[in-house]
């Protein structure tokens, strides 16, 4: 039955763990943070993302395990995006997965699927992000951060997440504490939000839309952090990381050209 082998096989594919963690965050939200009202939206997101993914799996003769990516994208959308009408979940899911198969370069998709879904809905004025939705509770934030570390280590993308967080942390520290003179807790408050860790570990670390070489990823993550810092501190844009990721995913192919390295494979 459940042999040791089955278990270690299941652990081999980082997507499994990612699905496990992301769905546990979602359940935490539903149970502890009153997200129950959004369940119909979640349903629509899954329905559309999975059906579009199945469509392309059939068309492109991909392995069925590619469904996992759609599950991860759906979970990402559910965790980050809020919409006015649950039915817009259909659009978000379809845009995210559709773009993954249609907008491609060098056999890699360009945009992070969930990120693009969020961006389109925000631009349409039908969706928004609630950066404060996790509150600033130590327990949840630590949980997200640790799970994120584990997953990114598994995918070998810890570098992107850490480079992003470190640069953002330093920039924020220099601006708020050193330059403006706010006390430490003002600065720490910014980094006690679950949204930022979710983004750093589960969104930008997507192996398919980040550069292939480690060196490139470190630089890429740092640029992402600086852009995001600039947008949020000087443009007062609360969706800053989403925009930053959108912009920098356009440059991923260039990074891949400069730093040559084979493309990532899930298993």
């Amino acid at each position: 039955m459940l042999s040791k082998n089955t278990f270690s096989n299941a652990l081999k594919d980082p997507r499994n763990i990612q699905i496990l963690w992301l769905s546990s965050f979602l359940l935490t939200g539903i149970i502890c943070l009153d997200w129950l009202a959004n369940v119909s939206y979640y349903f629509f997101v899954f329905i559309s993302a999975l059906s579009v993914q199945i469509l392309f799996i059939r068309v492109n003769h991909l392995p069925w395990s590619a469904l996992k990516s759609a599950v991860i994208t759906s979970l990402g959308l559910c965790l980050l995006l809020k919409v006015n009408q649950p039915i817009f979940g259909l659009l978000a899911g379809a845009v995210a997965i559709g773009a993954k198969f249609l907008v491609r370069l060098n056999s890699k998709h360009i945009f992070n699927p969930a990120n693009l879904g969020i961006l389109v809905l925000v631009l349409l004025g039908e969706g928004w992000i609630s950066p404060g939705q996790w509150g600033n509770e130590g327990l949840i934030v630590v949980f997200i951060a640790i799970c994120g570390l584990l997953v990114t280590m598994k995918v070998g993308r810890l570098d992107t997440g850490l480079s992003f967080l470190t640069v953002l942390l330093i920039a924020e520290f220099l601006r708020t504490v050193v330059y403006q003179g706010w006390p430490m807790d003002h600065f720490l408050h910014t980094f006690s939000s679950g949204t930022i860790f979710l983004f750093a570990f589960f969104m930008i670390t997507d192996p398919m839309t980040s550069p292939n070489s480690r060196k490139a990823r470190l630089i890429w993550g740092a640029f992402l952090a600086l852009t995001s810092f600039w947008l949020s501190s000087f443009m007062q844009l609360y969706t800053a990381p989403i925009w930053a990721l959108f912009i920098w995913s356009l440059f991923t192919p260039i990074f891949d050209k400069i730093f040559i390295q084979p493309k990532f494979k899930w298993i």
Partner: protein
Amino acid sequence: MDMKIRFVSIAVLLLSTFQSQSFCGFFVAKAGANLYNKSSQVILVRDGDRTIVTMSNDFKGDVRDFAMVIPVPTVLKEQDIRVVDPTIFQRIDDHTAPRLAEYYDNNPCAPVIQYETMLMKNSMVLESSVSLMEDEADYGVKIEAQYQIGEYDILILSATESNGLKTWLVKNGYSLPPKAEEVLDPYIKNDMKFFVVKLNLEKQLDSEFEGLSPIQISYESSKFMLPIRLGMANAEEAQDLTIYAFTRTGRVECTNYRTIEMPSNREIPEFAEAHFDKFYVDVFEKQYKIENRRGVFLEYAWDLSATQPVKCDPCPTPPLVYDDLNKSGVGWVAQQSGWGDYSGQLFITRLHVRYDRENFPQDLRFQTTPNRTHFQCRYIINHPASGDLSCDGAIEYLESVVDRRKKELEEVELLAGWNISGYTNYVAPYEKQLRLKKGEDSKKGSVLPIGFDPKSPKFLLYIFLFMLIGLSVPWLFVRRLMKQYLK
């Protein structure tokens, strides 16, 4: 079972319970006067990058000893500042406050009668105050502008460093709270200007004192925030702030603290009616503690667009009209004759925040969202039918009343933390009646089920464990099956 509705709106009686100070400015006292300021309210209007802030501060004290300093993002022009009718706060407060709805059971043994009544109690009184200085010296402080508006003298200062600003204020007769400096510097570095208000005493003393007018300021800035940190400089204890926000698109939400809906549509015991204000204050207190003294609480959200036929449901006061919106600074709606009175898109959000230095290290930052979902903080009481209960349906009815009353007691304990052990009489008479009806003499006491708090840490832990086990086991099976199937 048919019910009739009677509606009671009680705008929260916060005065006695909520001890607080000015929301975004600190009050600067002259020569150590003992200042005290109660809960504050603010109307926020956001349209694109334009923000209109109307501040009410309930200051009780000698108005001559008073000044208010508010950080603002730009140098305000004269036309950007005005004083408004103080009744506007009362008006919006009444309309959006947490409410209690009453239902009357029909007597199952009597014919149906229809009636409906409305009852209202009310809330916050407002006043505000100021007083200031004069002098010019070079402390890196620059008077950017100087106006006289309403009963106020207004200065707009820019400063290059906090010490200079502090010295300048002190030199002009102001005793600054000791912690003010820690926040002055960040504001200066952030290129904020300081809006300093004092009362024009000559003007004020001419007329009989009837409370001070709220000040309304308007500016263009991408920053959509309320600078609460300055207000905390001279306050050790938590302060309450109620925010009424108007936008075109939808709800206003806090971006750096969690925005939480208050518990709503809960059935509470009849006796809570007489103490509804106390009840709500306790509910708020409990929620505030559950959320670890952090968070911004949503008390009301409603689409008030001209095209929206239901402006409130039920309405504690007549819906807001053009005049109210105009006073609040909502600039985009146009007056029109006929029903509805104004045209345009409009959404109102009421947020309640209790903040202190420890738990609110950052100023409140907001965003407007496209979320047009309605929300009202509403509690319900049910009055059982009185009179003859001799028909066949009576047993079933009495059973439902007993059940309901037990649940209502649990609710009041769960929501407000009230000790319900003294309220056995609330259920007992109906149980007795029921026993008599059923011809039973057994003396079963009413045992109250224990409420389970779904936010306790232990409960959280259980959920995590359940989730991990509950998800991983089926997943492994599914995976195995999929593998077999695909091979």
